[in-house]
């Protein structure tokens, strides 16, 4: 068919990039494996950060798709396949997460030294027992993979049997997913990140992680969309109106991230409890202080001002610049979240961290573009597709 012929032509144009990404991922994986023997105390932390970044990118793709279904958005239908393609990073991220949990659970301080905190001691003890912890991880991942699989399957089926029925079914699935997602992602970020410092707790932590996960996800989605428009498959379908809306999402969720960041910071600063301030003190003093400030500048300050004017949201160059800055900010944020307790004095950036980042980028690019080219570039069977193509700014 004509469609698949053009699709192959576009895939060919991207083939060198994909090959490079795959090779880079392979080399980075080899370096990381070497690191597990040379410097296990650092390399496993790097892998953990990378896996968390990757699974969050995949989740953000799935969440984006679900959000558009649940809200009945029309403008974003042309971007649905990009979100779906991104969600293919989910299983890869899950592999990394499970690998660390199985092979190196001692990353978590409570693994060897059970937590005894007054008041909640019994609950914390039970919650942070390894079998329960591992079973929970399996449940979160199963829920995400299950919904991702079902939503993508319905969406692809719609290409052949057009009509609103499959859209309706996916809307229902998306609404259920978002409820399940709220609980599972909140618990997962608590389990996987917060319990690295088991004596510290914050009730807003899940939302904080969600905000960072989603704004970085939309940034990645914008970059993939711009790349696909430049190479071909989305040229003509994705216009300034879609970029404008993506830019609006970026500004909105970057500000949301800042809002949640500040809510957490201010309450800890105000109450001034020893067990709570330790977390912020560690990250805002010594060598970590610069990253602490950089985090806020990259995740909100610069992208907010850059993408505030309407023209900059509409222009793919400035939008891409904002997205790149936000992704850099995401890396700094995750580094502060996860790596800080492992080297409290100051950050120790290592070759393993770099390898983990290259691995994440390589795997993400490879999986996203390969998945994208395995189906139609836009959901052809969605009855509202023409309206989405002709979105107005």
């Amino acid at each position, binding site marked *: 068919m004509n469609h698949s012929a053009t699709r192959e032509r576009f895939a060919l144009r991207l083939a060198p990039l994909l090959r490079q990404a795959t090779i880079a991922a392979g080399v980075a994986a080899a370096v990381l494996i070497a690191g597990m023997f040379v410097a296990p105390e650092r390399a496993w932390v790097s892998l953990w950060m990378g896996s968390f970044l990757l699974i969050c990118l995949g989740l953000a793709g799935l969440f984006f798709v679900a959000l558009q279904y649940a809200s009945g958005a029309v403008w974003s239908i042309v971007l649905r396949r990009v979100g779906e393609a991104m969600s293919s990073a989910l299983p890869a991220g899950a592999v990394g997460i499970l690998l660390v949990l199985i092979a190196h659970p001692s990353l978590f301080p409570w693994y060897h030294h059970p937590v005894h905190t007054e008041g909640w001691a019994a609950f914390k003890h039970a919650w942070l027992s390894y079998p329960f912890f591992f079973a929970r991880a399996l449940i979160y991942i199963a829920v995400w993979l299950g919904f991702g699989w079902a939503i993508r399957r319905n969406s692809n089926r719609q290409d052949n049997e057009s009509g609103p029925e499959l859209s309706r079914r996916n809307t229902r699935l998306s609404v259920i997913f978002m409820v399940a997602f709220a609980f599972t992602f909140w618990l997962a970020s608590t389990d996987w990140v917060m319990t690295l410092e088991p004596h510290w707790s914050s009730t807003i932590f899940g939302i904080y992680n969600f905000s960072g996960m989603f704004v970085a996800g939309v940034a990645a989605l914008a970059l993939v969309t711009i790349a696909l428009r430049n190479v071909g498959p989305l040229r003509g379908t994705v216009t300034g109106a879609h970029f404008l809306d993506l830019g609006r999402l970026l500004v909105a969720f970057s500000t949301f991230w800042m809002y949640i960041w*500040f809510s957490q*910071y*201010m309450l800890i*600063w*105000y109450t*001034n409890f020893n067990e709570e301030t330790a977390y912020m003190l560690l990250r805002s003093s010594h060598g970590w202080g610069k990253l602490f400030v950089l985090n806020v500048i990259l995740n909100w300050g610069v992208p907010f001002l850059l993408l*505030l*004017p*309407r*023209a900059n949201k509409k222009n793919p160059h400035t939008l891409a610049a904002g997205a790149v800055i936000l992704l850099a900010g995401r890396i700094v944020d995750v580094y502060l979240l996860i790596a800080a307790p492992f080297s409290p004095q100051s950050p120790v950036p290592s070759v393993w961290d770099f390898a983990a980042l290259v691995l994440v980028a390589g795997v993400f690019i490879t999986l996203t573009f390969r998945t994208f080219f395995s189906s139609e570039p836009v959901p052809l069977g969605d009855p509202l597709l023409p309206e989405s193509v002709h979105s*107005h*700014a």
Partner: protein
Amino acid sequence: MSRRVVLGIFENESSLLKATRESRQSGVKIVDAYTPYAVHGLDEAMGLRPSRLPWVCFGAAIVGLALKLWFEYWATMTDWPINIGGKPWDSLPAFVPVTFEVMVLAAGLTTVFAFLVISRLRPAKRPVLVASGITDNRFVLVLEENDAHWDFRRIQTLLQKHEPVAVEERFEGE
């Protein structure tokens, strides 16, 4: 000064959009378009410049932010220092929420008033409806005679292509 205008009254937004686009392309001066609700893409079809209101909003936000920050530092450090929970006088985190609210208030109110001034809206202003139904189910495009070769028939045929409910010619005295 009096002027001659032509009204094209349409039943739906797509006709209005097409007629607007074609009028602009054939060089007819567009006075305004009246619709019961905001029609996406109409500003583009009319060739309107992007609104400068966001700059008013941004400027007002900066002013509100600066004034509030100055006031908080002045009040808590210079004019009336009070020890609250052992916090330093210059407790920026404590100032942020109020500063944020004042910034939003200043930006919001200024933008609304700037909008009212720009559109010459005020309380008790009597609305002038160019045609009945524009607050209900009609879309009106107003074109103005802008050269000596004004040909009503040409305008009429241009508008007729887009299935108007009516095309009216009017003389306005001001």
